[in-house]
Each structure stands twice: as structure tokens, then as C-alpha cells.
């Protein structure tokens, strides 16, 4: 859903913020798409890549996902392996349904998502747990602990409890690889989907992994069995007791599982229960303490926890992020500490654990050394790229008064930041439509004269925005929708969508026509406008016109993301310094290639003091979109002379 990409060659820029043209530049990618490294190779793999390798080796036939940080690279890596169907699904719910369908045929199947993706897929999950799996079925869910690029922080271990499903939690890449393979066996043996819970520090940490061979799993075939696969009340009722039975069985499996290891330690003052990355932090901070490492973390093994409790004077449960296991352990009558001394959000680390446990034991905690205090440096929030078409949209919206703009999840969420400050809400994928309609219908006298706009990206629109638009037209909403069609899923690194005409492998695919979709959803043809976000006057006029008219309208702003192959850079610009008047209008566009050379304070004839900002353009970074040219009154922004253009900049 939001961002990222570690293994994408498109992201290997060198030194300047110029995005596109350094793309294929210096660092080649090592992996050969069609030749997976042989068995027993020891590879430096991220957790995501390790899961992908294990999925492939497990003989999986179908793997599906919608991109979302930190899980994106799992399917991205899998797409490079042969002999399986990997796909970008339109959303996580669909990806899970695809995986379930494959499992019904006896094929091994897999889907991956970020934590908020499982919210979307949960409708499927809660019934899929009742049908159970036939072919091995594994769901990888990656929690963005610490919110590196998400709208919230969630603990996906809860889904194990809610859906009565086993949860495996690897602590590094090697374990991610091994547990993924084990998960398929577990899934088939107990006919249950298995949740593989990852976190950012599993997904995006590279470590050494010893890999193996692919095994072949020929699907046993779909067996007609309505009582199992047709979930009407009468059928579901019969199957629900088996969930409780499965919980009990799996508790026994967990109790005996080699994934749950009791390390007896030598310093028994404090013992720890830990899983995932938290285990590594515990081992680093307290190398001699007894630890129960939970790899099979739900159902958790009560006898092993009791054995640990008997070994140590004090028991501390170390978990990212919620107070979950701790509550359950205490409910089982075992005294323990946890979130009474540890933080309830964010990533843990040895430096978080050590003082917390010292305090618990009543030891004096020395204050941190002054040298370890961070220096004061300006914040550097993420920016839109030079030439990003979204800049045209937000520059325009920032110039229009009396509007409320609801937003969504993607690069364009950055429109809420400086200099535009042009986005008023962001909740979850697709929410912009419903929120906009709600604002429209709920507003009273005080907001009566405001115009309501909804901004959404092309990928997000197809993920969950179409229903919201249908709801606007059906319920006669007065909302102007800006559909930002950049031909890709931008923030996660440029994944293909049904509207990009490419599939996950970059091969040609059917291309949905967004204007036709919008029309089919009930927007009158004359209220659908297609504009170029680089053409500011037309964009401005179109938005002004559309917000004045009652009823729904959709403005499709079409320009490719600058990070995808469809983007062709133009001749870069420079600032003729003698012409620049220091007005700063160009800075309002928000382009990272524009820099202030010097500032001057002047007194205007009115007596008002203003600060002028004289600028130049980094023509290594500029790709010539021309957005900044349009607000420049003195025509100080001109093309770089052709002779001065580095040959790698302009494609012919």
C-alpha cells in the first residue's frame, strides 16, 4: 500500500536526486531472472527474498499479492522464479481468494500482504479458516512496526486468535526461509491456512540463508464437496466446532514444536519469552538469561512457559507490539511482566530492553551519555520526485480557496506536506471517496460554500476506490474526483496495475480504460475530463469549472510516474540569474530540483518588508517537466542549451 523497494534496479540512483536517468546506471542487478541459484547456495537474502525462495521450493503453483511495504518484495522476487503463477492482484482480499481457490484444487498456494492489507482480506480470512486448506496455504503478513510507511501500526498476531489459525514468527532470514517451508507441511497436515507473521526487521534485513531445491507438488484435484466449500449457515455450523478442536490439536503441536525452544541460560534472575526480532534483541542484551523463543507463537505452549517460569525469578514477555502474549500468559496463572516496563509501540532494541529490565529489578539506571544525544538537524521528509505529475495537481489545489480535499494512500499523500498543504484527510486505501461523500452529506451551514474534492491514484482506485465512486454517483454526491493516473503503483516502486497494460513480468496485459470504468460507475460522460497535469492553466481551469457544477465529476490527470519506463525525460531547465526577481513562485511547485541561491530582505513601496529568494535549478536532477516555468513571471526559467545537456539525460 505505501512505499518501498530494496531489490529494484530502478531505485539504484547514484548521487544526485535525478531519478530517472541514473536508473540503469552503475549497479547491475545480480540475480538472473530465470536461473534460481542452486541448492545449498548460501545467499545474502532479505526476509522477503527468503520467504519467496521457500515458497518456490515448496512447489507452490499460485502466489498473489497487492504491493505494500514492507511485504512488496516477496511477490516481486517470486515473479523471477519459473514454474509458478505469480500475480499482482487488485487488492489483498482478491489475492487471498485467489490463493484459497488454488488450494481448493490441491495446489500449494500463497499470498502476501502488509498488516493493513489483512484488514482488507479479513472477510475472506474469517471464513477461509472454516473451510480450511486443501493444498498447503500460507498467508504472509508483514507488520510495519515503527510505521516506516504506513498509516497505522497493527499487531497481526491477533488474527491468529480471531481466526483460530496457527501463527509462525521467524526471527531472521534463515528462519523466514525454514518456517515458510514448514508452514506448507503444517497447513496440509492439519488442513489449516497458516499465518506467517513478519515485521519490517524481518522483511528488510538481509542475512545469510542456505537454500535448497524445489519440490514438485502436483495438485490432487478439486473434489466436489459443498459441505466444505459452500459456506452457507448449515454447512458452516457443522464445521465451526472443528476450529476449536484444531486449536487444541495445534496447542499440542506447538508444545512439542522444535520452533519453540527453551534455552535454560546461566543467569536466572530474569527469564524472557520472545518471538520474531524481539528474540534477537533479548539475546543481544541478555546473552546468559533463560529464554523461551517462540517460533510457533500461536497457539503458544503453556507447559514450556511454565517450565521457563520455574527456571527464573522474574519472567518478562518481550513482544512487538501489543500486550498480547503477556495478557494470555497472565490469564493462564503465570506471573509475568512486559508492557508495564516496555514500550507499547514501535521497535524494540537492546538499548530499550536493558534499562527497562534494570528498572524492573530496582537497579540504578545510569543516564545516557551526552555524546549519544542526537545533533539538531532539520527534518528531511520524503518529497515528490523532480517532474512528478502530482506536483501539478497539488500546486493547483494549493492555489484554490474554499475547498476540502480528501486524500488516499500513495505518493500523492505527500500533498498534505509543504509547500502545498493541499490534502485534508488520509485514512486507508480507497477511503477518499467515502470520506468525501460523508463530508458532502454531513456538512452544515459553516461548510456550505466549500467545494469537496477527492484525490486518488490509479492503483488505489482499482484496489478499493471504484466502489466508493459508485457510492458517490448512486447517492448523488457533490464531489469532484481527481484520479491521478500515473500508470503504476508508484510508492511501492512501480508495480504494474490493470490499467498499465503490463503484467507482473512486464509482459503485455489487457489494459482497462479508466475513463470507461468511471463512466460505467455512473459519472456522466460530459463530467469526465482527461487532462495533462503538466499543463497548469488547463488543469486549473478544469478543476475550477468542475467544482462549480453540482453533482459528481471525475478529472483524470494522466502522466506516467517518473520512475517507470513510460516516462521520457525532456530537456532540462536552468534559471537565467539576471532575470530572476526572487519572487519564489517556482518554489511553491515543490520541486526538489529547485534551490535557493541567496535571500534578500527588501522594503516594498507599501513599506512592507519581504524576503526574496533567488533560485537556480539543478539541471542534473531536472527532467524538464516545465511545471516551474509556468508560474515564473519574468520568464527566467529557460531550457538548458542543447550543447550543455549530458548525453545520458535526454532519450531520443
Amino acid at each position: 500500500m505505501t512505499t518501498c523497494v530494496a531489490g529494484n534496479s530502478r531505485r539504484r540512483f547514484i548521487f544526485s536526486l535525478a531519478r530517472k536517468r541514473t536508473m540503469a546506471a552503475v549497479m547491475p542487478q545480480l540475480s538472473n531472472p530465470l536461473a534460481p541459484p542452486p541448492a545449498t547456495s548460501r545467499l545474502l537474502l532479505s526476509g522477503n527474498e527468503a520467504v519467496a525462495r521457500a515458497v518456490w521450493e515448496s512447489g507452490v503453483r499460485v502466489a498473489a499479492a497487492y504491493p505494500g511495504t514492507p511485504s512488496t518484495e516477496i511477490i516481486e522476487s517470486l515473479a523471477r522464479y519459473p514454474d509458478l503463477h505469480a500475480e499482482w492482484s487488485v487488492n489483498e482480499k482478491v489475492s487471498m481468494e485467489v490463493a484459497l481457490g488454488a488450494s481448493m484444487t490441491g495446489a500449494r498456494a500463497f499470498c502476501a500482504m502488509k498488516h493493513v492489507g489483512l484488514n482488507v482480506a479479513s472477510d475472506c480470512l474469517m471464513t477461509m479458516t472454516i473451510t480450511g486448506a486443501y493444498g498447503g496455504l500460507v498467508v504472509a503478513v508483514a507488520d510495519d512496526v515503527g510505521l516506516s510507511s504506513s498509516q497505522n501500526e497493527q499487531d497481526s498476531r491477533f488474527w491468529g486468535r480471531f481466526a483460530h489459525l496457527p501463527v509462525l514468527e521467524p526471527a531472521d532470514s534463515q528462519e523466514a526461509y525454514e518456517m515458510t517451508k514448514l508452514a506448507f507441511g503444517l497447513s496440509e497436515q492439519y488442513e489449516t491456512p497458516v499465518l506467517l507473521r513478519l515485521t519490517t526487521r524481518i522483511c528488510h534485513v538481509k542475512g545469510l540463508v542456505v537454500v535448497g531445491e524445489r519440490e514438485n507438488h502436483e495438485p490432487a484435484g478439486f473434489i466436489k464437496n459443498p459441505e466444505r466449500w459452500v459456506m452457507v449457515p448449515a454447512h458452516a455450523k457443522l464445521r465451526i466446532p472443528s476450529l476449536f478442536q484444531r486449536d487444541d490439536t495445534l496447542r499440542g503441536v506447538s508444545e512439542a514444536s522444535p520452533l519453540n525452544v527453551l534455552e535454560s541460560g546461566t543467569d536466572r534472575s530474569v527469564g524472557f519469552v520472545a518471538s520474531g526480532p524481539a528474540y534477537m534483541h533479548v539475546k543481544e542484551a541478555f546473552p546468559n538469561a533463560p529464554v523461551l523463543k517462540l517460533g510457533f507463537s500461536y497457539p503458544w505452549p503453556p507447559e514450556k512457559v511454565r517450565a521457563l517460569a520455574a527456571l527464573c525469578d522474574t519472567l518478562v514477555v518481550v513482544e512487538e507490539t501489543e500486550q498480547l502474549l503477556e495478557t494470555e500468559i497472565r490469564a493462564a496463572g503465570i506471573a509475568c511482566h512486559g508492557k508495564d516496563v516496555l514500550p507499547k509501540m514501535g521497535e524494540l532494541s537492546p538499548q530499550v530492553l536493558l534499562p527497562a529490565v534494570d528498572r524492573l529489578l530496582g537497579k540504578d539506571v545510569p543516564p545516557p551519555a551526552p555524546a549519544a544525544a542526537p545533533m539538531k538537524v532539520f527534518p528531511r521528509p520524503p518529497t515528490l520526485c523532480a517532474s512528478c505529475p502530482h506536483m501539478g495537481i497539488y500546486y493547483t489545489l494549493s492555489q484554490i480557496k474554499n475547498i476540502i480535499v480528501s486524500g488516499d494512500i500513495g505518493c500523492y499523500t505527500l500533498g498534505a506536506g509543504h509547500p502545498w498543504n493541499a490534502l485534508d484527510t488520509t485514512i486507508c486505501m480507497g477511503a477518499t471517496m467515502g470520506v468525501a461523500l460523508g463530508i458532502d452529506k454531513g456538512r452544515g451551514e459553516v461548510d456550505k460554500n466549500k467545494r469537496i474534492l477527492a484525490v486518488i491514484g490509479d492503483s488505489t482506485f482499482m484496489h478499493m476506490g471504484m466502489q466508493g465512486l459508485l457510492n458517490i454517483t448512486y447517492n448523488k454526491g457533490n464531489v469532484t474526483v481527481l484520479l491521478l493516473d500515473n500508470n503504476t503503483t508508484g510508492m511501492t516502486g512501480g508495480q504494474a496495475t490493470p490499467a498499465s497494460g503490463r503484467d507482473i513480468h512486464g509482459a503485455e496485459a489487457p489494459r482497462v480504460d479508466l475513463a470507461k470504468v468511471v463512466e460505467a460507475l455512473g459519472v456522466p460522460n460530459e463530467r469526465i475530463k482527461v487532462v495533462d497535469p503538466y499543463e497548469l492553466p488547463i488543469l486549473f481551469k478544469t478543476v475550477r469549472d468542475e467544482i462549480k457544477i453540482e453533482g459528481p465529476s471525475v478529472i483524470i490527470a494522466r502522466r506516467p510516474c517518473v520512475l517507470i519506463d513510460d516516462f521520457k525525460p525532456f530537456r532540462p531547465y536552468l534559471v537565467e540569474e539576471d532575470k530572476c526577481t526572487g519572487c519564489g513562485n517556482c518554489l511553491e511547485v515543490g520541486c526538489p530540483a529547485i534551490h535557493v541561491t541567496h535571500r534578500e530582505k527588501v522594503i516594498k513601496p507599501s513599506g512592507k518588508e519581504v524576503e526574496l529568494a533567488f533560485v537556480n535549478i539543478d539541471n542534473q536532477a531536472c527532467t524538464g517537466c516545465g511545471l516551474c516555468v509556468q508560474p515564473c513571471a519574468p520568464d527566467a526559467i529557460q531550457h538548458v542549451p542543447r550543447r550543455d545537456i549530458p548525453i545520458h539525460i535526454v532519450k531520443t
Partner: protein
Amino acid sequence: MSQNEITNILVCGIGGQGVMTATEILAEAAIAEGHDVKKTEVAGMAQRGGVVTSHLRFGRKVLSPQIEPGTVQVLLGFEGAEALRWSHYLRPDGLALVNNAKLVPPVVELGLFDYPEDPTGQMRAAGRRVVSFDAMSIARDLGEVRLGNTVMLGAIADYLPFSPDVLLACIVKRFARKGEQVVAANRQAFAAGREAVAKQLGGAPAHA
């Protein structure tokens, strides 16, 4: 350096500069030397001109992947203000190798924040060991700004617990298929990076 000691290297810069790739090559070198290795970063939204740090830890057995403040032996900074931002991660005896690049974000251009005066000077004033150099000019003098990454790797080469040749071999391996000319240019850039640092620190390199 004792057998059990973990080497912590922090590479910092801005999304798009090549921080993650540089760290990946350092990791490959550590693996070639037989170390257990963990490398981590929060890529996320930092791609978009935001802050990027890449943590590299290696030794006999690495547990936690994250480097903690006050524990870094070598900080490789691709940008001045970013090196300053992460300088508290250095051990008291740690070394910062900093590219003089000054990449100013829109929030500073808009006048909302100030770019620090002389970031490496501030680090030195705080008692840090700092070597700063202009990797971009060095690369430009060699005829290709894109060699800047290899200049940075050359800069750190003598401050790793293994021979610079191990790191150079990993770089050469990456570029082998690009042809002899590219390999030769990268060798030159690597040597130039080593020299830029050695010239300032003086005397023999500190490795081994």
C-alpha cells in the same frame, strides 16, 4: 579486533544516492571474509528524497540487526547534514568519512528550516574524528560522476577489519560484465577514494 567483536558500519544519505547499494557491496565483502552478516535499512518512504540509513553488522555471529547509538566504528556519510544527523551513533573512537555533498530539501528552500553551517565542522567540534572529501569532484575529475559510489567505497576500504582488496574484488565482480573499461574506471575511483582519506589522516591506513 577480537574474534567476537561485532563491526558496526552505518551508511547514511538521502533516498536516491546509492546508500543501500554501497552497503550491499560492503556486506558482500564481509561475507567473502567469512563473517556472519546482517544488513538492514528502513527503505520505505525514505526513497522520496528522505533520510536513508543502512546498518551493516558483521562478526562471528550477529543477533540484532539494528545498530544502536554510540556503537558505530565507521560512519560513511553520503551527505554532510545526514552525517551530522547520525553522528551520535559513533563510538567515542569511531571514524566518520563524509562526502561534502550538500543536498538541500524543499523544506529548507521554503525557508521553514535552516541547513546547518559546516556540518562536519560541528561534528569535529563535538569531538568526532571526521574526514571529509568531495566524492563528486573526485568522480567528475575521473570523467564520470556516477563513479562517486565507488569513491565512497574506496574511502572506507582502509578502515574495515579486512584488506581493501576484498572490497575491491566485490566491486570488480559487480562491474565485470560491463567490460574492462568500466572495471578500470571503478578501480581508479576506488584508489582515489582511498587516497582522499589517507591524505588527510596521514600515514599508513588503519586496517589489519
